[in-house]
């Protein structure tokens, strides 16, 4: 079966260039490659939070996203799968990353396959993926992949993990996400009022009849 799928990456690195963005890009390549091998065509859209930083805080203060951020959110909401990568600061995801998650529509990621990634100084931080990022996306009812990829500084030098080096982890995680995306029907544009109950339903929920 061949169909168009959209893969959206969210990366929360603060510097340019950013190792977080680099990890996001590598995960994206692996996912696209696996999807294309399976006969799919893929559109990739990257959301780099650094460029939306001010708009994200504005949205927290005003309650609505503006300009490019609004378009970025629409892109994410219409995705077939997502890759979310953050640097780890002080034991957990970066504040910018969390702020972005906080302005998401609470139901928008429901069922969406999401591959998590994180970067940090040493491998000792790697469990942060599982004790902080994973619960966040579980709360949003995303379909969080069991495998997540952590890249420490040493990993980029090839010295970090002799048993399961970073490229191998990236390839495997990308393949897992690709399989999850391929197994789903392509995303259709969301109807914002599609789930609005009729007035009879609203009355019935309160135990009344129309």
């Amino acid at each position, binding site marked *: 079966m061949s169909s168009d799928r959209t893969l959206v990456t969210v990366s929360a690195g603060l510097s340019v260039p950013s190792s977080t963005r680099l990890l996001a890009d590598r995960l994206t390549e692996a996912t696209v490659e696996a999807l294309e091998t399976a006969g799919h065509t893929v559109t990739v859209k990257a959301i780099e939070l650094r460029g939306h930083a001010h708009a994200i805080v504005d949205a927290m*203060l*005003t*309650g609505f996203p503006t300009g490019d951020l609004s378009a970025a959110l629409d892109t994410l909401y219409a995705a077939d799968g997502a890759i979310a990568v953050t640097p780890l600061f002080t034991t957990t995801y970066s504040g910018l990353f969390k702020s972005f998650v906080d302005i998401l529509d609470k139901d928008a990621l429901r069922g969406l396959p999401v591959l998590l990634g994180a970067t940090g100084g040493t491998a000792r931080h790697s469990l942060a993926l599982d004790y902080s990022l994973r619960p966040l996306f579980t709360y949003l009812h995303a379909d969080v992949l069991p495998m997540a990829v952590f890249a420490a500084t040493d990993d980029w030098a090839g010295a970090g993990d002799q048993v399961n080096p970073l490229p191998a982890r990236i390839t495997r995680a990308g393949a897992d996400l690709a399989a999850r995306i391929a197994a789903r029907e392509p995303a259709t544009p969301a109807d914002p*009022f599609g789930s609005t109950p009729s*007035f009879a339903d*609203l009355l019935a*929920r*309160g*135990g*009344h009849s129309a």
Partner: protein
Amino acid sequence: MQFGIFSVSDVTTDPVTGHTPDDTERVRSMLTIARHADEAGLDVFATGEHHNPPFVASSPTTMLGYLAGVTRNITLSTATTLITTNDPVRLAEEYAMLQVVSGGRMDLMMGRGNTGPVYPWFGKDIRQGIPLAIENYALLRRLWTEDVVDWQGKFRTPLQGFTSTPRPLDGVPPFVWHGSIRSPEIAEQAAYYGDGFLHNNIFWPLSHTKQMVTYYRQRFEHYGHGRADQAIVGLGGQVFVRKNSQDAVAEFRPYFDDAPVYGHGPSMEDFTRETPLTVGSPQQVIDRYGAFVDEVGYYQRQMFLIDHAGLPLKTVLEQIDILADEIVPELRRIVEAKRPADDVPLNPPTHAERVATALRAGSLGAAHVGGTEDRWTGLRAEEGDPRNLEPTAGRPFGL
């Protein structure tokens, strides 16, 4: 199209002078603003309902009742009345009283409230916000349209043979709007009853407003109240105007930058680009607001927020004059020329029109519940058919 102003009643320090009005001063300024809007010829004044500082408008019917006595033409309304935390029995009584006192020169807008803590203050559960809005409003309508009500629901004690008094003026309840920003369930509710729908879009991009209004229009048609383009729609707005746009920008900027509702967030330039806030010359307001109808269809009421963020009373009164003299007449001409058909309502229905409609439909309720009427069926026993009553609409009380 009607043009009016609405107040959220915020007590905010004037960032230019450092003056903070006390509650008494703020309430009195709202009364002055409403009277001035009436004298200037605006169509509507509406007050919010809040139960927490920094807001002072906790008792809309007290304020509007006074205003009914001291104004002549302006329609008095709310923005919004809390249908979730107010007892619908109390609402039925208070707003029927206001309807009588004002000679029908009022309507009201329902909303669920803007702050979570207000629910427990009145013994309610915020998680039941939508069901409360549905049940309470259904009861409110029955209390206005049926003389004697037996009722049982989830959220208040049952009623046995209860009659809410005074009965609505001329037997026709006030016109009701439902205000919602994000909840399609409320648009659905407005459509179901054929009531008005007001989208207070002052913090929202037009694309979102258009989605909500379109949904309400489709459902209005679905429920058989008329075509989608005949549905009764209102929009919020906010403006700050001076003859020269540079003066408006310079004068309003400190108020924008410090305002609790939007200060310290997006720049005024970003905010004015993304939302209906327009800071500039009268012509800029006319151009901007004259184009909304192209997006959401012809609508019947445009409300402006102008008395917030610590703006001094004198400035607010000047804004009313500019609105009334330089903006509304031209804007009205432009917008009304875009009305798609003659059978699309020009304005929201007046009390007199609603009485006439009820007469035609033979659905007029009793305007009085005398001592001799049959309490068990609610039929009037005294002489005279209620359908022969002269509408008292527009007859100012006590003037």
